[in-house]
């Protein structure tokens, strides 16, 4: 304060008392040394705790994670059940020990497998076949379930079976493409040549939930299921 100037230059205001003086507490208010770069450095730890915490630029920085703040729940499209297309580069989700052995019934040709509940598996042995349910993702980030064909119990696995399993394991760490090669009676495995980015899996990859979602309307838990009835010649 330069009251000298105030008094000299503006006598009309001279009766007004000077502004209150700062007390010791004020001196420690967090408006001193505001936003100094030094506050960012480790040497600032020598300052009083209140000052150090209050003044750093990092403390007043707003998060930019608006995608988290938005609180939007994206309803993912229904998970498809299919084998990887012959032009699709895909990755599998591990570890392979978590892949689920199951039995499916085919409802016509193509990717039309229906999952059979454990409770009735022994009742539909004649119509079902064993599969390994494997979560996969393609380059577009679409997750799907691959019902990898397995040899029936007691049967010797064919090259078709073993080569697809090899491909699934290979795809744990490589962008992989498979195509049927009738000459060698097996799938040929191709690895993407580029240094491709790693897949971005959904935040919560719970295999059981994925399978429940994928087979929600493709699930057989009773002999009364229309597909079983059809296969048994009851309808």
């Amino acid at each position, binding site marked *: 304060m330069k009251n000298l100037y105030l008094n000299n230059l503006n006598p009309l205001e001279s009766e007004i008392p000077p502004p209150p003086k700062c007390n010791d507490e004020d001196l420690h208010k967090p408006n001193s040394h505001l936003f100094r770069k030094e506050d960012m450095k480790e040497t600032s730890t020598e300052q009083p705790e209140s000052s150090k915490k209050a003044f750093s630029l990092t403390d007043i920085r707003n998060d930019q994670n608006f995608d988290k703040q938005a609180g939007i729940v994206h309803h993912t499209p229904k998970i498809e059940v299919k084998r990887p297309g012959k032009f699709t580069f895909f990755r599998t989700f591990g570890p392979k020990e978590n892949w689920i052995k199951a039995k499916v019934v085919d409802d016509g040709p193509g990717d039309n497998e229906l999952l059979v509940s454990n409770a009735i598996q022994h009742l539909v042995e004649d119509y079902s076949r064993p599969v390994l349910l494997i979560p996969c993702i393609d380059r577009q980030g679409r997750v799907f379930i691959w019902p990898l064909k397995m040899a029936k119990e007691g049967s010797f696995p064919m090259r078709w079976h073993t080569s697809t399993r090899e491909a699934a394991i290979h795809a744990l760490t490589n962008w992989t493409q498979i195509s049927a090669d009738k000459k060698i009676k097996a799938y040929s495995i191709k690895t993407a040549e580029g240094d491709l*980015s790693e897949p971005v899996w959904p935040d919560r990859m719970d295999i059981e939930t994925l399978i429940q979602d994928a087979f929600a309307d493709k699930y057989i838990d009773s002999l009364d299921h229309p597909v079983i009835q059809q296969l048994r010649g009851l309808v």
Partner: protein
Amino acid sequence: MKTLSLKAYGEIWLVDFEFRSPPGEPPEVVCLVAREYHTKQQVRLVASEMAALEEPPYGLGDDCLFVAYCASAEFSCHLALGWALPTQVLDLFAEFRVATNTTEGHPPAYLLDALKHFGINHSTDSVEKELMCDLIMTGEPYSDKDQKQILDYCESNVVALELLLPRLMDEGNWPQALLRGRYMKAVTQIERNGTPVEAGLLSQTLESWPDIRSHLIALVDTDFGVYEGTTFKKAAFSHYLMKEGIAWPQLPSGGLDLKEGTFADMAKIHPQIGPLHSLRSSLSKLRTAAPTIGTDERNRFSLVPFRSRTGRNQPSSREALFGYSAWMRGFMKATPGFALVYIDWSQQEFGIAAALSGDQAMMTAYASGDPYLEFARQAGSVPPEATKQSHPDERALFKECVLAVQYGMGAASLAKRIDQPESKAAHLLSLHRRTYGRFWEWSEGVLDYALLEGKLKTTFGWPIQIGAKPNKRSIQNFLMQANGAEMLRLACIFATEAEIKVCAPVHDAVLIEASLDSLEATITAMQEHMAEASRIVLNGFELRSDAECFPYPQRYADPRGQTMWDTVMTLVNREAA
């Protein structure tokens, strides 16, 4: 700190100066009124009284808050009077911009507009303001009556500040507001520094302009054949484009889009258009304007901070040499013993997007030093051992793809830009989505948030309110642009406080002037300030910068304008001879 309030300060000084400001020159101070907010103590000083003071009649320390509207004007008076700048600054202009910044329209931001916005009745109106400005501009000596009138007018502005302060800062974020105030001090230093120019040559060129104009058109038009005399012929230009096989953007009416921005964009894709773009831009601008140069041969202009939606400076493109065609930057030239240095952040927008979204692949690409080539590698389009030399075409395509994403382009626009089928452009964009999935997830989250909450805010609180007709691309790009502005502000603050002579901030760069004796050390220091600014804004992620040095007697040279510069100088010299 967010609870900091007006009560936290022992003194709060509301300050307004009146001054005359000849173009390119420091201000001539006319009067000052300052009022203390708590006690209502007031100081009214005229120029002669201020000249007798070595320091201002109010405190400048940590416990005193300096409040003004567009404080850089007040600080320019401080510097003109040889007074120090205050420590704690609150600029109500910046805070009014914060309160009203929106995606729609361009809200006025004068002091009277702020008062009107809050429904505050005030004695001054725009007519009176204009009259007072005219009176002030007449210059000294003022009659006693005029002097009193000017002081009263100045005081009315202080009263306006007093009324505005509690309205604007009631719920404001003080620490971030004070950071903006701190930037206004940097602005003042930069505006005061200005950019050294070869004023004689500039003046000679401007004087010769009417005479060399037609020669220049004839020379440049040799390669185009689009002028008839001094008239640009659209039909001839259309014919040229067809001959060259250049797809040119069209207006909804079907005519060619000949806007300055379109020409600038197209000159980037088709460099052969560059000279024609420079010519058109110069012909249009130099007809009515000239950069503001002070008697000390420095280009000075108001930076107009916080004026754009993204919070960037928005100086007059007529006053600032950087606002003219690239060739005119050749008039910038350091004084003997000094160098001009242009330092820009490398691929700033890409780096900001990578860091804010937390996309690891994108951050890896930035860290590689050549994000465009690394993107091509990550997408599997070039082998790991590819280099800029071995795969120039692929790199160029992926660069265009990155830029297209930054500009929010779709496949059709990118296809035009790269002169390739739309399917190729769509494939490139899909590669970006695949490779940088986390970035896209974040970017879409930003849009969701903006549409739900109706606002977005940068790291240091520069906001935008989302209007009724939001533009998806602008919203998604806002955080890159506005955080880039935050970064530049921090770098300018650090640099000016370290007494580096910043001549001008330029979008993602700064132009500094350094003594040849300490050139290397100054460049290193400036680059470190820029790196630190990036780390602060990007939560630890550091952006690189590149420096280009122009020591005296070398002039500033922008490669985009070199041909035009050479042509103009040939004509100017011929005219002089």
